[in-house]
Structure formats: structure tokens, C-alpha cells
């Protein structure tokens, strides 16, 4: 059994022990108008702005009370804003903070405890690597875009995947992100006290406007493309195949590069430089100058990104989609 100190709870405030900590202190949003809580409120607001601006929340060593309390307050504020964009962004950014702290975690006991608390049964092996069940691995790793995460490139034996510690921590990030996001979605909307209304309004205003769908020539989008756009406008993280589809489809339909890049600005892990690079690569402006066509329906289907409707009617590539059949006279 590990002894968790306040500092540990401050680093990993997703642990259930934190709930007890809060229950004891009886914190609620109503009390936050009191001057005592000003610094907490300030730090909570800072956490959220760090999330929006840098996609990563910082960690202040040495003030566990402030860190723990501001985590919950930020959580409540994000929830109160009701913004899907903020919920996604905030979950990701807190997860990245925890990822970094875990990466540098000195205590093996605390490390294992946190990993386990996230529902990841990872067994530490003598050589410093870890083993976990393939199904758990898949649920977390399938959304990571690099090929090295493919199961085929991993050591899978008798149902267990063996991975180095830094990879385990990368998966933990995904688990933390899911956890915070799910908690946000399930939490009932808190009543916002008068004094906080200002902050909540401010938060609502920083959510990006709904994605303006670029007009592609030739009418309706195929279901797979619509699905990707839908995910983006909800601020959800579109898997690699979906991004590739979207960019190549829109570009081939004559939508400009800038319009395509701006589409991705709502993505929780948006990074303008990388996005621009990827988009330009697919468009054939960079790399080998090869302009990519959208993946075939068969490939999309095999990646689980086909959302076929009757209107797809035997087409082989999303580019062939014509939408509602026009009566021929």
C-alpha cells in the first residue's frame, strides 16, 4: 500500500482520494465568492486559459491545497460553461499535465497506484517494461495516429502487450482524458452563483464558433465526410483516417488550403504548424508533390470509418458520391 501525500493528490487530482479530501472541506461554488477563495478562483481560471492557449495545464509545486482545489473549481467552471469545445480541451490539457508528471514520477509505488486507479492493469516486469491486456491496449492505442502504435508492431503474447514505460504513460494520457471528459459529461450542470456568472460568460465566449462548413462543388457530402465534419464541429478528436479523408476530399473538391486548415482549429490538439504541414502534404504542395486522392470506400470501411447509407449506392470512392439521386427525365 502506498502512502499518498497532499503533493501526490495535487499532481494526480483524478484519484478517488481527492474526492474525500473535498468532501471533508465541503467546497461548493457558492462559497467561492468569499475573498479566501480568490487565489483558488484565479488559479482555476488560469488552468482553463492554459488549456485553451497551450493545450497543457502547468503544475505549481509546493502549494497542494491551491492545486487540488483549483482543479475542482476549474472542472466546475468548465462544466458550467456547457461548452463541448472547452470540455474536450480541458480534459486533454489536464491529461497532458498528468502525463508529464507521471513520466517523471520518482516513486514506483505512486506510479503503479495511479495507473491502476485509471483501470489499467499493467504489470511491471523486471526489465522496466510493462505488460497489459491487449483489449485495454487497443481501446487506448487505436486513436494514436503513429504506426508504431499498431498492434502488429508490438510484442503481443498470450493476450498481453509488452510496452516500455514511456509508452504506458502515453496511454495513460488517453485514459485520463477519457476519465475527465466522461466526468464532465455526466456531472449535472451546477447552479452558477451571481459572482461567477462573469467568468462563466467569459468562458462561453472563448469557445470557437461552430465550424463553417466549406462549400464543396457538387452538393452533398458523403456520410463519412459528414461524420468527420460533425466530429470536428463538436470539438471531438478525429482519427487519422478521418483527417486524411477530410483533407483529401475537400481539396479534390476545390476547397482552399486555408479554409481546410481553419476547419481543424477546433480540434482539441490543434497545432497550426503541424496541421498546415499535414494538409499541405496531402494536397501535394509538400513532400513528393504527390496529390492524394481520398481513400477508397473499401479502405475507409476497413478502418471503421465508413458510415454508408443507401445514397452511397455501390460507389468505390467518396469522391463519386452524388447524394440524392436526381430523377432522370
Amino acid at each position, binding site marked *: 500500500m502506498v502512502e499518498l501525500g497532499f503533493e501526490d493528490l495535487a499532481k494526480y487530482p483524478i484519484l478517488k482520494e481527492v474526492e474525500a479530501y473535498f468532501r471533508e472541506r465541503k467546497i461548493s461554488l457558492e462559497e467561492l465568492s468569499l475573498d479566501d477563495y480568490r487565489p483558488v478562483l484565479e488559479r482555476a481560471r488560469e488552468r482553463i486559459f492554459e488549456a485553451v492557449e497551450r493545450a497543457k495545464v502547468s503544475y505549481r509545486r509546493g502549494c497542494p491545497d491551491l492545486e487540488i482545489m483549483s482543479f475542482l473549481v476549474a472542472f466546475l467552471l468548465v462544466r458550467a460553461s456547457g461548452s463541448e469545445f472547452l470540455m474536450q480541451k480541458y480534459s486533454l490539457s489536464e491529461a497532458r499535465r498528468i502525463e508529464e508528471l507521471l513520466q517523471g514520477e520518482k516513486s514506483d509505488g505512486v506510479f503503479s497506484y495511479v495507473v491502476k486507479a485509471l483501470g489499467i492493469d499493467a504489470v511491471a516486469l523486471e526489465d522496466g517494461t510493462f505488460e497489459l491486456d491487449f483489449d485495454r491496449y487497443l481501446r487506448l492505442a*487505436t486513436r494514436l495516429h503513429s504506426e508504431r502504435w499498431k498492434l502488429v508492431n508490438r510484442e503481443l*503474447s498470450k493476450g498481453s502487450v509488452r510496452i516500455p514505460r514511456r509508452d504506458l504513460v502515453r496511454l495513460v494520457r488517453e485514459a485520463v482524458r477519457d476519465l475527465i471528459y466522461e466526468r464532465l459529461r455526466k456531472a449535472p450542470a451546477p447552479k452558477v452563483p451571481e459572482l461567477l456568472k462573469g467568468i462563466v460568460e467569459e468562458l462561453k465566449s472563448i469557445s470557437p464558433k461552430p465550424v463553417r462548413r466549406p462549400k464543396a462543388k457538387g452538393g452533398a457530402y458523403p456520410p463519412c465526410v459528414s461524420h468527420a465534419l460533425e466530429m470536428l464541429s463538436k470539438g471531438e478528436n478525429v482519427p487519422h483516417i478521418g483527417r486524411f479523408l477530410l483533407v483529401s476530399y475537400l481539396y479534390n473538391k476545390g476547397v482552399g488550403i486555408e479554409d481546410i486548415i481553419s476547419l481543424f482549429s477546433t480540434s482539441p490538439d490543434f497545432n497550426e504548424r503541424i496541421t498546415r504541414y499535414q494538409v499541405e502534404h496531402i494536397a501535394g504542395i509538400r513532400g513528393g508533390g504527390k496529390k492524394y486522392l481520398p481513400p477508397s470506400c473499401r479502405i475507409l470501411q476497413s478502418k471503421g470509418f465508413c458510415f454508408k447509407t443507401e445514397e452511397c449506392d455501390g460507389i468505390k470512392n467518396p469522391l463519386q458520391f452524388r447524394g440524392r439521386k436526381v430523377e432522370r427525365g
Partner: protein
Amino acid sequence: MKEVDFLKAAFREYYFKMSDRVEVPEHIEEREFGYQNFEGVMIRHLSFRDGGDLRAFLLREVPAGVYCSPARYTDPTLPMEEKGWKEADLIFDIDADELECKCWNEYRYWICESCSAIHKGAKLDECPTCGSGRLRPVNFVCDECIKKGLGEVSKLLEILKEDFGVKEGDVKVYFSGNVGFHIHVKDERFKGLGPAERAEICDYLMGRGLMPEVLGFGRGMPLASRWRDRVLDSSSLAELKRMYRKMGYEGFRSWLERVALEAGARIDPSVTIDVHRIFRLPGTLHRKSGMAKVGVRGLEFDPFRDAMPFGSEPVRLFVERSPRLDFRGEAFGPFEREEVELPKGLAVYLVAKGVARPL
């Protein structure tokens, strides 16, 4: 007698006398059923309370094909979005007639529905004899095809067992009733997985996306995978080095995928990935062969012996064309435009294949 009536009578006899061979799935009330009638119409979104309910339906409708979802739903009769998907068994489909075989020359041809001319070779757009576009493919499978299919099955089982740790008792291998094999895996760890995770499993089984780093090539971080041993079983490290030098990273990578595909299992990934699919119900008959989808034990299989429920009472037929076929130790044919008397099992088979009509 018309072909359809003949087949329907045979199917009715089967469901009447041998309905105990139809496998009633666990949690039947949570499964979606579908069937195809002899007019070729597909009806989905059905459900049955229990085995008796299902058998009564089979007798009443005498379907040409019966399908059941590997998935469980809260309400299987509702439209797809409202069914309430709970979980799905993992399934695989291995098509024996996609594995190139020397029998293709004899066992595959096209029959023109207009002038009944027979054409061999690649698919034609129209009949060279009469110009009609109504060409119907005919394909038989030989022992070799079956053996190759089973070879793929055993590769699949090996990887499932060694890499995924699937227990033998959780896997069931079936002959699909026509030209392939179906593998059903009842293992809790797979049940909740969605399409993306299942796609990863398929890629794993086929070695798709294997990186040169697994074999120690390339600039990326070295990776460990059992696929290293699988590749090294067929190519030596020296050969790999030579290929890498010759082809460069990207070229080597696609070459490696081809090598891996040989070592992996040739499954049809779209079947495994689609968690809403309905899949032929074990113990029911296949419209294109008259045979049943039956379990395969010990990876040794003879379709006419193990999957053809009809016996040897003689039936008179006119056969358009059929290759030589071994039916339960006796050779029949080849036949070409002739009247013959054949054991019922073989007669049903040839009529179902669309190359004969009962007299």
C-alpha cells in the same frame, strides 16, 4: 419440376426432419435474425424468443438462407440506430475460393442465361455466343481449395492462441456451407470492442502495417513483435538486409507487408469489422450448394461427407455441365448436356450450383 421447387422441397425436408441440427444461439432473444427467401428477397430485424420459435419459423418459411447477429441488442427488431448494441462475438470469414487453385481452370466458368453457352476464363461483359449480358458465374471447390482454406484457418487459430491467448474451447470453426470457413470466437475480451479495435486485430492477423523497425531496419525506435519471427521463418536476415539495401525504407516496407501476408491469415476484414452484421446461422442450409453450415473438427473435412445432409436415393437430372465430382467415395462425371441419375445429395448440389435441372 422447376429448380426452385426442387430445392425448396429439399430444404423443407431438411428443416422438417433435421431441425435439431440448427444451432440455437445463446441469448437468442437478443440477437437479430434475417433470412432470404427463394425469390432472393432479404428480410432483416427479426427476433425469436427461443429455439422452438426459431424452428417453427424455419418450417413455416423454408428460407433459402438464415442469418443471425453475432451481436446482442437490447431490442433486435428496431432499426439499427435504436437497437441498443451491447456486445458482439468476434467472427472471421475465410473464403476458400479466393485462394488461387489449379482447379480453377476446370471448376470455374460462366453460363449464359440466354443461350446456355458455357465460357471459361476471366469475367466477360457479354456472351461471345449470343451477345447477352446475362452471364452467371459457376464455381466449384476441389479438395485442394478446401485444404488451402483450412491452411488459412490453422494459421488464424495459431495466432489467436499464441498471440492473443484465446483458449481452444472458445473457438469454433465452421464450414460456411459453400466455399469458405467461418470462425466464431466467444472470448469475453473481444466482445466489447468496436470497429476500430477489430480493424486493428485484422491488421495484426494479416501483418498489415508491419514496420521495418520490427526487424531492426530504419531510423525509428526499434520495435519488438512476434511478427519478427514469422517473417524470419520465410526469409533469412541476410536476405532481408539485401532487400532493404536494394529497396530503401518505403520499398522494403511494402515488400515486407507482402511477405507478412503469406505468413498471416487471409481473412476478409470487412466481415470482422462490421459489428452489426448478420452471419449465417450454424446448422442452416446454403442456397448455392444445398449443404449446411457445420462445425469442422480436427481440421479435416470433406464437404459431401460432413455437410451434405441429403442421401443417396436416385434422382433423374439434366446436367448442363459439371466437372468430375467425388461423392462419398464414388466418382461422378464429368457431364455435359446429358440426362443422368445421381444420388440425391449430389443432385441437390448440382441444382443449387445452377448447372442442372430435375426431370
